[in-house]
Structures are given as structure tokens and as C-alpha cells.
């Protein structure tokens, strides 16, 4: 399944993450991640985002995420919200 249009969720507040998604011309999940804890948790955050997108059944998507120290529960919720918003008619 592919998303229909661009959408975003979350915020740039501390402990939150700002997620923008848009339909992608490339194959698969294209992720551009920027995080204030990149060195400590970069790999981990990337995995959490991709896992959430995959679970939602999305095949091709471009994601830009700016992380402000969000925990997994927030990362997953914001990604899910952005994707669901992008699937709405």
C-alpha cells in the first residue's frame, strides 16, 4: 500500500518528534532522520520508524523526521499518525 498525499505529525518540543511523510518515487522506505541523540540512539530510532511503517502495510514512502529526544512510544505514535493522515481521502 502507498500513501496518497503528504502529511505530518508531532512537534519540535522536547521529548517529541516531528514526522513528515510523502509519497515516494523510489522503492521502499526512504528515511531522513535528524536527532539530538543521534550518536546514542540513531540506529534505534531508525529501526523504530521503519518497523512502524512496515506494520502499517506501507511499501513506498519518504519520511523526514526531526527528533527532539522522543521515546519509542512517541516515535511510533507520531509515525502512525502521520501515515494515517496521509492515507485519508
Amino acid at each position, binding site marked *: 500500500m502507498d500513501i496518497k498525499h503528504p502529511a505530518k505529525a508531532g512537534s519540535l518540543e522536547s521529548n517529541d518528534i516531528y514526522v513528515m511523510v510523502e509519497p515516494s518515487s523510489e522503492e521502499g522506505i526512504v528515511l531522513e532522520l535528524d536527532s539530538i541523540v543521534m550518536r546514542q540512539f540513531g540506529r534505534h530510532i531508525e529501526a523504530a520508524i521503519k518497523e512502524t511503517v512496515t506494520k502499517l502495510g506501507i511499501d513506498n514512502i519518504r519520511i523526514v523526521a526531526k527528533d527532539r529526544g*522522543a521515546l519509542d512510544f512517541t516515535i511510533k505514535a507520531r509515525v502512525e499518525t502521520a501515515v494515517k493522515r496521509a492515507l485519508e481521502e
Partner: protein
Amino acid sequence: MEGCRRSMLFMPGNNPGMLQSAGVFSADSIIFDLEDGVSLQEKDSARLLLRNALQTFDYGGTEVVVRVNNLTGSPYGLADVEVIAPAGVAAIMLPKATEKEIILLDKMLAEIETKTERTTGSTKIFPLIETAYGLMHLKRIISSSIRIAGVLLGAEDLTADLGIKRTRDGEEIFMARCQVAIACRAAGIDAIDTPFADVQDQEGLIKDTQKAKALGLTGKAAINPRQIGLIHEVFAPSPEEVLYAREVITAMQEAEKEGKGVFSLHNKMIDAPIISRAQAVLAKARQYGWKEGENHA
């Protein structure tokens, strides 16, 4: 038990930082808010964030309540319940609750409980009484579901509905407080007072809480963690109360030993209501960590 919910702390449902730390303030209950605390554009976002938080965190001894959006008056309420209840909450708080909505919510919760293999009836309901209608039909509202664990009086909306001014002293909600206290005590459920709006005004909060306690309310909602400690202090039994209760119980035990049915203390006849009040005070005192024989006075 009476007094289990001395404080119920409102926290916005869309703030990741607050969801992480909601359990550290020693509130008896936290109310995660999806209603007024979340903007219309973020209702979907808050719902998922809160669901994830509930699935992730153990809030320890703090009871978790979620205030959903109105079930019939808003397009969000039903979805809130569908998403939140399966994640596991102690209670759903229903704004501007009517009997019809409570019956609807009761049915939804029963279905969700069956689906998620939870005990039927384990999810409680807290109607928010904040309209003239709600106050007028308090008794019917309370008896429309066995899930109802207590009532929260919402003075801001209520006074708006009544077209009267909300004041710091709160004389305008005297009647409503009495009604809520009486109805809840009659039904054996908690009567939670409206929050005190001015977070900076500690003295005002203490007075307002004392007023509510004096009228028979059992707890108070809070809108800032800083209010918790003071609310607990007000609802704690006073050293004098505890001392007297101990005397009553000791006198009773002695009377029992001597086979006396009726006895007196300080020249006053002690009857059943006084004994049960003394027992309630001591139970509460134990809850506050008072130890037998310790003298806090």
C-alpha cells in the same frame, strides 16, 4: 473505599514529556485528557500517543483515568473509547455525561472487555457533572451503570451553563457541591471536587479544598502537580481526629471486655455511627502511613 481518590491530576494527553512522568507526582489518580487539553487538529495524534503510553508505562500505584471527548456531541468520543479502552485504563471520564451516553459507554466497555479478555465491569466510569441537566439528574446518572466509581464536579462549565460568574470563593457552587456530595455518599461512590484554577494561589487552594471536604466531597481534582501535596494534606485526618478515634476504639474494646453494650467517653455517649467514623479515620490514617502509638499531635 472512601478516600482512595483524594487527588485526581489532569494531564494533557498530547504531551510526550508529561505522559512519561505522570506517575511521579504521588497523585492518587491521573486523568489523561483528550478533551479540552487537546486541540481539534491533534485529536487523532493525542489518541494514538496516549494509547502507546498506556501500553508502555507502568504508572505504579497511580490510578489511570482518561477523559475522552463527548460521545454524542463530538466526532471524537467514540473513537477515543475504541482506541483507549483496549489499552487498559482504570476508568473513562465522560464530559457532560447524560444517562444515555453512560449506557452507551457501558455497552462499549463490556464489548471491549470481552474482546480483550478482561473482567466484565472492570473498567470504571467517571461522569463529569458540569451542566444544569447533569446536576438535576444526578441520581439517575449515577444509577445508570454499575461501573460508576465516582463523580467529578466541573464548576467551570457548570457555571457557564448556569449563566453565573465563577469566583475564587466559590459560593456559587455551594449547592452543586452539596448535591454531588449527598448523591455520591448515598450511592457509596467518590465525590470529586472541581479543580482550583489559580496554580500560584496556595492559600486559596487550601481554603477551597477545606470547603469541599467540609461539605462531604471525598477528593479534589488538580490541574498542576504542585497542588497534589496540599490537597492530600487537607484530606488527611488531623492529629486530633486520629487521637480521638484511637480513644473511641480503645474505650470500645474495654467496654466489650467488660461486657458493656453501651459506653461513654469524656462524658459523651458513644454509639455506632461514632465508632464507624472512628474506624474510618484510623483506616485513613493508616493509609497516610501513621503508625500505631505514634503521636503526631
